C-alpha cells in the first residue's frame, strides 16, 4: 500500500524547539516517503514580523527558524524528507537566505530552497479595494495606521516548489492546512478539484497544525485526563494512504497520547460550523466523521467530506493600535480579600483623579480574573472560602503611550500609598496590534515560486 508519512514540527511560533527531532527520527525509521511541516505564523505573529522588518530589512521571519532547522537539516536532506513552513512570515526572502547560510555551514551547498512569495496585499487594503469580512463589519480602523495585509494562500504554490525539487519550502502567510495538503497533493498527484482528497488533506492539516494539541498538549487534566511524560510530548505524525486512509500517531518513545479524546478535542478546535470549515483549497465537512482507535497511540479518521473551495481568500490586515498598560501588586494572609478589593477600588478612583484618558479593568488573581468581565462582577460578587494570596492586576487601554505608562505606574505608587502589606509591584506598557479580516478574489493574489540551491541564494 502506498502510504505517505507527514510529521509536524511546530504548532505555533514559540513551540518547543526540540520537538522536531524525534519526529524526523521516526519518519526516517519508517523508511517510506515523508515530509515535515512547521506552522509558526499567527495573526499577530505576522504583524510583529512586519514591524521587525521595518526596523531591520534582514529580519521579519520566524525568530526560531535556524534553531528549529539546525538539528534536523542534515538528516532530512540525506533522507529526502522535505521541510515546509510558513516561517518566512513577513520576509520570506530573508528567511530563505537564513536557511541557505545554515545549509552552507552544514556542508549542504546543493540543498534546494523553494521560495513562495506574493501573499502580501497591503496596497489593496490601503487603497480600500478589499471588502471587510462580515465577521468584522463593525470594526472601524479609521484612527489607526495600517501595518500590512496578507492573504491566506492555498497549497498550489507549495506543490510547485516541491515539484521544482525543493528540500526546504519557505512561505509567508499560507493557510495552516495548506502546509499539509501540499506534500500530500505532490506525492499522490491530487488534482485541485478533487474535493474528497483535498478534504482528507485539510483534515490532516487541521489535526496536525497545532503540534502537540492532538498528542496530549492542552489536554492534561490531572486525575481526569492523564498523559505519560508530559515534559516530552511527541509531536504528531499522520499516515495517509492513496486510498484515502488517515491515521494519526506520534513517534515511538515520546510522551503524550493519541486516543479518541485527544483527536476529538483537536478536530473541533477553533471550528465553528462543522459542515463548513473553510480553507483556501477546499471546504471541509466533518459532520459524518468517525474515529477509531486502531492501536496504541493510533487513531483512524473516517468519513471526511469536501466541497468546492471559495472564490475568495481571507486577508488579515494589521494596524498599529492603542497602548496597553498593566500593573500588578500582591497581598496575602489574613484579610487579604478585603485589602485586595479596597486596592482595586482605589486604583480605579486614581484613574479618575488623575484625569487619565484610559479604559481600565481590575482583576483579583486568586479570586476571579480570566473568567471575569471588565467590571469585575465575579470578584465583586465572590462569596466562599477566604483566599490567602491575591494578585491585584490593573489593565488599561490608552490612546497614548504616556497615559498608559502613567496609569500603570499608579500600581507602583501603591508600594507606599497602598493597603497594609502591599508588595511585589511589576508594571509594563506594550503597543497593541489590531487586526481586521478582509476578502480578496484569489486571482488578485498571484504567487511566485523560485527554487534555487543554498549556494546560489547565498552568493
Amino acid at each position, binding site marked *: 500500500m502506498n502510504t505517505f508519512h507527514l510529521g509536524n514540527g511546530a504548532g505555533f511560533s514559540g513551540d518547543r524547539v526540540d520537538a522536531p527531532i524525534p519526529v524526523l527520527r521516526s519518519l526516517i525509521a519508517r523508511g517510506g516517503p515523508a515530509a515535515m511541516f512547521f506552522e509558526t505564523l499567527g495573526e499577530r505573529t505576522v504583524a510583529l514580523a512586519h514591524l521587525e522588518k521595518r526596523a531591520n530589512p534582514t529580519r521579519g521571519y520566524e525568530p526560531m527558524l535556524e534553531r528549529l532547522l539546525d538539528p534536523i537539516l542534515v538528516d532530512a536532506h540525506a533522507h529526502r524528507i522535505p521541510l515546509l513552513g510558513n516561517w518566512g512570515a513577513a520576509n520570506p526572502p530573508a528567511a530563505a537566505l537564513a536557511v541557505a547560510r545554515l545549509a552552507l555551514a552544514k556542508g549542504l551547498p546543493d540543498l534546494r530552497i523553494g521560495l513562495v512569495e506574493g501573499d502580501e496585499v497591503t496596497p489593496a487594503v490601503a487603497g480600500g479595494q478589499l471588502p471587510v469580512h462580515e465577521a*468584522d463589519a463593525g470594526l472601524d480602523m479609521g484612527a489607526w495606521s495600517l501595518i500590512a495585509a496578507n492573504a491566506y494562500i492555498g497549497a498550489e504554490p507549495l506543490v510547485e516548489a516541491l515539484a521544482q525539487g525543493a528540500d526546504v519550502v519557505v512561505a509567508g502567510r499560507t493557510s495552516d492546512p495548506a502546509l499539509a495538503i501540499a506534500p500530500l497533493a505532490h506525492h499522490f498527484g491530487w488534482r485541485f478539484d478533487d474535493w474528497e482528497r483535498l478534504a482528507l488533506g485539510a483534515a490532516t492539516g487541521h489535526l496536525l497544525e497545532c503540534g502537540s494539541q492532538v498528542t496530549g498538549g492542552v489536554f492534561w487534566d490531572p486525575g481526569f*485526563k492523564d498523559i505519560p511524560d508530559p515534559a516530552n510530548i511527541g509531536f504528531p505524525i499522520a499516515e495517509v494512504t492513496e486510498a484515502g486512509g488517515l491515521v494519526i500517531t506520534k513517534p515511538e518513545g515520546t510522551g503524550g497520547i493519541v486516543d479518541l479524546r485527544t483527536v*476529538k*478535542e483537536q478536530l473541533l478546535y477553533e471550528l465553528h460550523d462543522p459542515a463548513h470549515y473553510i480553507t483556501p483549497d477546499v471546504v471541509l465537512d466533518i459532520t459524518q466523521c468517525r474515529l477509531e482507535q486502531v492501536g496504541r497511540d493510533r487513531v483512524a479518521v473516517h*468519513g471526511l467530506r469536501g466541497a468546492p473551495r471559495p472564490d475568495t481568500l481571507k486577508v488579515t490586515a494589521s494596524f498599529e493600535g492603542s497602548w496597553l498598560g498593566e500593573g500588578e501588586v500582591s497581598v496575602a494572609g489574613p484579610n487579604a480579600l478585603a485589602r485586595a478589593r479596597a486596592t482595586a477600588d482605589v486604583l480605579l478612583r486614581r484613574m479618575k483623579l488623575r484625569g487619565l484618558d484610559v479604559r*481600565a479593568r481590575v482583576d483579583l488573581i486568586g479570586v476571579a480574573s480570566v473568567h471575569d468581565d471588565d467590571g469585575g462582577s465575579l470578584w465583586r460578587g465572590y462569596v466562599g472560602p477566604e483566599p490567602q494570596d491575591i494578585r491585584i492586576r490593573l489593565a488599561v487601554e490608552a490612546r497614548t503611550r504616556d497615559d498608559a505608562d502613567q496609569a500603570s505606574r499608579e500600581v507602583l505608587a501603591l508600594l507606599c500609598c497602598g493597603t497594609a502589606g502591599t508588595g511585589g509591584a511589576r508594571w509594563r506598557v506594550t503597543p497593541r496590534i489590531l487586526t481586521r479580516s478582509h476578502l480578496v478574489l484569489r486571482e488578485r493574489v498571484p504567487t511566485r515560486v523560485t527554487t534555487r540551491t543554498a549556494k546560489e541564494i547565498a552568493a
Partner: protein
Amino acid sequence: MREVPLHAIAHSRAGDKGNRLNMSLIPYDPAHYELIAAQVTEARVLDLFRHRGATGCTRYDLPNLHAFNFVVDEVLEGGVNGSLNLDGHGKTHSFRLLELTIRLPA
C-alpha cells in the same frame, strides 16, 4: 437523580476566532451524549457568559463523534484585538463550561 458538574463526565477545549469563542463538549462515556443533548442547552451556556456581554450561542451536534460544538458570539470583550483580559483568546473558558451542572439518573 444526582447533580454533578459537567467536569465529572465530560471534557472540553476552547478556541477563538476574533470575538467569537468555540468550545467542544465531549462526554467520556458515549452513553451520556443524550443526557447532555437534553440538558446543556444553548440558553444555559449563553447564561454562563452573559456577564461578559455574550449575545448568542449556537450548539452543533456531532452524534457520530459523540461530541458537541458550542459557538458563543461577542464573548471575548473584543478578543485579542481589544480585550483587557489576561486571556484574550478565551482558552480558559472550556473549564467555565465544565462548571455547569448536569443531572444524572440515580
